[in-house]
């Protein structure tokens, strides 16, 4: 397992380098100029100066190599300095946002907590709801519970999150005034009252995303359970006199979890990327909102860095999914 992990990690390096190049070229080809938000009254020679100052006039390969150096050398050194109080990175140029002129990594660190609390909670909640529903739906296939579960899952899966988001805002924020419609990033949880406030403002985005995730995962769970419930080893377990609880929650569940765990692990990177729309709808000032803003402002370094981080996460969780697969299924050996 260890050799497999190391081999996969090493293989990930050329993959990620290639991805970063593709992203860089794509972003570079995209229309729009970092100057588009600068007022027209600014004279051309000043514009040229600004562009030169940002390094945006350099040829694309120079900018790419510079970005590589900044991402893989400078930023880790900065992090090192930050943790250990050293100053290796002194005088080195970090990746700087064209929009805000501050280091992209600092902005990401600022935005990360919002995304993690809101979207992470919703994913966790979605998984916790989905698993029991999927298990019970399969065990009582075609029962009322299963039919209703299927119906809700269909809605959750097919109605886009921006629509459910708007409906929730309309019902719970505008009409009922239960929850605020806008997420307040500056809220600090210090006591019970601010905690309740935080829960209230998280409620709607979490509900929207949890419904979507739960719908998806519960379907996977259900079909995987169904596949295993009919297997011969289930009959063997019953013939041994094991209780239904043991049969279903030990024998069947362990086998059914193998594909589902993979789906759950592969879905985690989407916590960061896929929730862009929901963050927009509820004005959650997270990574999704950051990416959208950067794209609109043709902020190449930010777009490039964020997209690349998503790519790293996807590659990483692919690896984690494979490792989990090997742990759960003894038939799979990686050495």
């Amino acid at each position, binding site marked *: 397992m260890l050799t497999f992990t190391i081999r996969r990690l090493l293989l990930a390096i050329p993959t990620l380098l290639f991805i970063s190049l593709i992203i860089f070229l794509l972003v570079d080809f995209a229309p729009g100029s970092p100057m588009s938000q600068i007022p027209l009254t600014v004279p051309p020679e000043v514009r040229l100066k600004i562009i030169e100052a940002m390094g945006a006039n350099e040829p694309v390969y120079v900018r790419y190599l510079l970005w590589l150096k900044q991402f893989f050398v400078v930023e880790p050194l900065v992090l090192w300095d930050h943790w250990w109080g050293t100053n290796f990175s002194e005088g080195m140029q970090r990746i700087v946002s064209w929009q805000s002129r501050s280091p992209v990594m600092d902005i990401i660190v600022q935005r990360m907590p919002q995304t993690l609390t809101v979207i992470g909670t919703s994913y966790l909640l979605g998984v916790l709801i989905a698993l029991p529903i999927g298990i019970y739906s399969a065990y009582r296939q075609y029962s009322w519970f299963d039919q209703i579960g299927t119906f809700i899952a269909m809605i959750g899966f097919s109605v886009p999150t921006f629509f459910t988001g708007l409906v929730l805002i309309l019902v719970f924020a505008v009409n009922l005034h239960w929850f605020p419609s806008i997420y307040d990033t500056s809220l600090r949880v210090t006591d019970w009252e601010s905690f309740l406030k935080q829960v209230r403002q998280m409620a709607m985005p979490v509900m929207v995303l949890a419904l979507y995730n739960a719908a998806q995962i519960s379907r996977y769970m259900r079909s995987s359970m169904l596949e295993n419930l009919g297997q*011969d*080893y289930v009959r*063997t377990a*019953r*013939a*041994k*006199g*094991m209780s239904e609880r043991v049969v279903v929650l030990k024998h069947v569940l*362990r086998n059914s979890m193998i594909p589902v765990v993979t789906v759950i692990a592969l879905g985690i990177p989407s916590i960061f990327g896929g929730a862009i729309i929901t963050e927009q709808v509820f004005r959650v000032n997270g990574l999704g909102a950051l990416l959208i803003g950067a794209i609109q402002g043709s902020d190449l370094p930010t777009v490039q860095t964020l997209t690349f981080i998503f790519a790293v996460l996807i590659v990483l969780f692919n690896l984690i999914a494979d490792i989990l697969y090997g742990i759960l299924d*003894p038939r799979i050996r990686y050495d």
Partner: protein
Amino acid sequence: MADGAAPVLDVRGLKTVFRTRGGEVHAVNSVSFHLDPGELLGVVGESGSGKSVTMMSLIGLLPSPPADVREGQVFLDGRDLLKISADELRDVRGAKIGFVFQDPMTSLNPVFTVGNQIMEPLVRHMGLTKKQARTRAAELLALVGIPDAEKRLDAYPHQFSGGMRQRVMIAIALACDPDVLIADEPTTALDVTIQAQILELVKGLRQKLGMAIVWITHDLGVIAGIADRVMVMYGGQVVEQAPVKELFANPRHPYTRALLKTIPSLTGERESRLQVIEGQPPILSGAPTACPFRARCAHAFDRCSAENPLRRAVDGKPVGRGHDVACHWDPEAAHA
């Protein structure tokens, strides 16, 4: 074996029906049989004759719905298994009655170690601690002829061959010292040399442990080698039942006769082509009112489609105790 002793298992008038979209299928129709202590009863019949369904009905292993065990009594230790609660039945399964299934490749759970799967019933029924169960599991593996048992406990089923897995299944079935072992075509999925090994193993275990065995198969050759008594099933009912020598020497039912002719002879010149029984076994959508075999029977006459024959004794002993047959046709009368 022990003649006249009370049977360990006594099944009377068992009826099982499957409810499907296309209507009801009567898979088991008034099947009665008993099993004496230490006896090996062979159950023969082609696919779909109701052999497996009968045995699974006994201990509630059929999924319900669609299966519905409608009538009958199944006595084990003086208790009717069809009347007791699901929980009580679970205490019987795996403890008093062990089950070995046809396909050893899929009958074991792929994600748990072999040891874990043998230990489960030991902990559940015999109340052993994990440690005691492990010791006993190793003994069981050694008993079924798996070398290096202690180490193999930690292996997973995929690390075993088909024959080895069937040995593990037998170890699981025998774990709690059952009175009855039901083996549902345990050698069908194995190749011939492994079949022979498993047969020898079961023969030996039977002598050592003394449990009664129900051996389901469609291979009469296997039956001839190990059974004390044979029950031939067709269309969800018992059509003939006799001690093994008697059945092979003096088959009465046209179906049994036809089955015996389908066995290739290993000695002497091949006289003729192997005979086949033309046609398909019936799918019974209602309780049978006629003999289920009549469509394929060479001796069928009017009465066969008017009345389903009951089992009648051939040798004067009570039905089930000697040789009995469910057929209107009388071979002696035909020869006379």
